[in-house]
């Protein structure tokens, strides 16, 4: 009888206690500087919203992708806000896995988002993820080495200029390599760069009937150019180098040029980390001969809400705060304008204080605006995405093709063999997936 009374009492207390508790949002994110800063500054949000608590789950990028994909596909409901990229957003939105981000507040100013970024995160005009920071690709180069060699970098160079300059400034005896490019296999690693390079040289992944195009002349030119250039002017072991490895090489003065994500600009110009911080210049992603097409690289880390979340309203409040102009000003006041998350809002690039603090701002904006994710090649394509193809099968296919190109770079197979294997495996996967017969 006594036990029954206790249990009855407890059953009345539980709902009362729950009602008084704050709503807890579980946020899955990656360990990038901007994300960690958001976590540190999130007290400002919870102070204004005492009814919302935040629980952070920070994971390595690949672990995060596997984790959130499993959860959203099975409606596991573990997360209320997920950090996802420009690749996942359109695919997941079309599956109705994401809640549309309408009603983010009157002062959110959705029209201020950079057009390329907004397009990349929208399906049929509806925004499904709010951009936290965005990046395109550009050239970072050593002004001192260029000066020594009597070279002048154009604002928008061609690949042939880059190749000549890279070979000219290479000094292997002193461990200075003309160019550092990604070589580590992976759809988000070497294939991000190689796809952007191939796009700029007129290649495309698929024709309008979804037939793979690795047997085309454009792909042959692009991959042969990449392998020859890296063999002549790249660092040893380049087939193992990804973003962080090349960042390390550039910061320690071993690369004459590095073509990679615009977000790297803040790292290579940071005197605390980089030995070459005061001699770095920037230029646009190269073009090929008379083709008017840059790499069209566009990546956006953004915040999205799984449709299965039971806390969509609270999650929207947080996303509206974290991707707002107000947040930008908060970061600027707490940590300086140079640390503001870049590449999402037009107004940031009109702000004189930011332009002064970030010498790479103009080039970043120009690169972002040059990105065209709806038609990344000069040829017609049936897919969206710039350095990737926004179909669910691409992660697997892209990594498998990346392994072939990485092997070609390492000299294990010829360029022709790598392209042939890439063609065969892509045809096989596309047939299995029902795109082609």
């Amino acid at each position: 009888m006594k036990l029954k009374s206790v249990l009855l009492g407890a059953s009345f207390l539980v709902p009362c206690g729950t009602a008084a508790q704050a709503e807890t949002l579980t946020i899955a994110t990656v360990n990038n500087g901007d994300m960690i800063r958001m976590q540190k500054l999130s007290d400002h949000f919870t102070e204004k919203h005492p009814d919302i608590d935040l629980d952070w789950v920070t994971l390595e990028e690949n672990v995060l992708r596997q984790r959130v994909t499993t959860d959203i596909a099975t409606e596991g409901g573990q997360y209320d806000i997920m950090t996802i990229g420009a690749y996942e957003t359109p695919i997941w939105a079309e599956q109705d896995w994401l809640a549309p981000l309408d009603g983010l507040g009157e002062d959110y100013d959705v029209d201020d988002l950079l057009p390329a970024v907004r397009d990349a995160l929208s399906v049929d005009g509806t925004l499904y993820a709010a951009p936290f920071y965005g990046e395109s690709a550009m050239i970072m180069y050593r002004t001192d080495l260029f000066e020594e060699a009597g070279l002048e970098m154009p604002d928008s160079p061609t690949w042939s200029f880059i190749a000549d300059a890279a070979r000219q400034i290479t000094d292997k005896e002193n461990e200075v390599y003309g160019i550092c490019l990604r070589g580590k296999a992976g759809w988000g690693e070497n294939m991000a760069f190689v796809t952007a390079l191939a796009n700029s040289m007129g290649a495309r992944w698929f024709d309008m009937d979804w037939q793979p195009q690795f047997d085309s002349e454009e792909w042959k030119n692009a991959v042969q150019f990449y392998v020859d250039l890296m063999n002549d002017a790249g660092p040893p072991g380049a087939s193992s180098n990804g973003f962080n490895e090349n960042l390390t090489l550039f910061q320690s003065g071993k690369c004459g040029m590095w073509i990679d994500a615009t977000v790297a600009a803040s790292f290579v110009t940071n005197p605390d980390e980089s030995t070459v911080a005061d001699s770095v210049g920037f230029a646009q992603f190269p073009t090929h001969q008379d083709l008017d097409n840059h790499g069209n690289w566009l990546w956006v880390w953004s915040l999205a809400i799984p449709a299965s979340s039971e806390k969509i309203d609270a999650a929207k409040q947080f996303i509206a705060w974290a991707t707002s102009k107000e947040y930008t000003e908060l970061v600027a006041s707490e940590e300086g304008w140079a640390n503001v998350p870049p590449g999402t809002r037009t107004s940031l690039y009109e702000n004189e204080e930011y332009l002064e603090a970030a010498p790479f701002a103009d080039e970043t904006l120009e690169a972002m605006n040059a990105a065209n994710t709806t038609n990344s090649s000069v040829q017609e394509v049936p897919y969206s995405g710039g350095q990737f193809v926004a179909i669910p099968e691409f992660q697997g296919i892209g990594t498998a093709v990346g392994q072939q190109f990485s092997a070609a770079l390492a000299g294990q197979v010829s360029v022709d063999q790598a392209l042939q294997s890439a063609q065969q495996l892509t045809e096989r996967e596309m047939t299995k997936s029902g795109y082609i017969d």
Partner: protein
Amino acid sequence: MARAVSTRRKWITTIVAWTIGLALFFPILWTFLTSFKTEGEAIATPPSLMFFNWTLENYVEVQARSNYLKYFSNSIIIAVGSTIVGLLIAVPAAWAMAFSPTKRTKEILLWMLSTKMLPAVGVLVPIYLLFRDAGLLDSRIGLVGVLTMVNLPIIVWMLYTYFREIPGEILEAARMDGASLAKEIVYVLTPMALPGIASTMLLNIILAWNEAFWTLNLTASSAAPLTAFIAAYSSPEGLFWAKLSAASTLAVAPILIMGWFSQRQLIRGLTFGAVK
């Protein structure tokens, strides 16, 4: 002359053993040293082994960003919990197979081991759905269950091997004296197999502590153990080696210390019955 050869062999053996030992230990030492460097020094080439500006800033940063004690206590609960549950199931199972074998015992043992041959990711979605429906996602009890199952074949196999070394006549004598099955296992078998059980327990704790597939995929924040703590410090864009090394040092330190103090039991257990 014979003595001289023996001494030389001893020296060679010692040098080879130390070389292998140091090679195995070097990654841990390197991680430990890197955890006291700045991010810039951590990537410097050529790297500095000892002569750098030692700093505790990475540990301060890791402490500020993560609640280490929460991850640590989850690791303890999951590793110890799955070991205890595993032993409770495995001791009777190994007893039955060692002392009352049937025609199918060997097939059963092989079948149990074959479950380890399936890549874990192959059953991720079914397990995830089961956990979702049972409300076990991000719960310590769920992880204790899954890690018990994952390590059970190894525990049963190890215990079976140890039990086989114990003469069945001793158990028969206990039975003749009127011992029940439970008493036979608890008072006769267990004390005799204690070194084997202890080493199985220690090995299982180490395996559960280091398990990084299920613990990452089935947790979010409440039940996340130290594997998730480490995973938070790897970055796709930016320098992270020093902070990752600090997090790794904090994560492996407890199990390293436990292994150090229990190495005698571990070796004794692992070589139990090896020399007749």
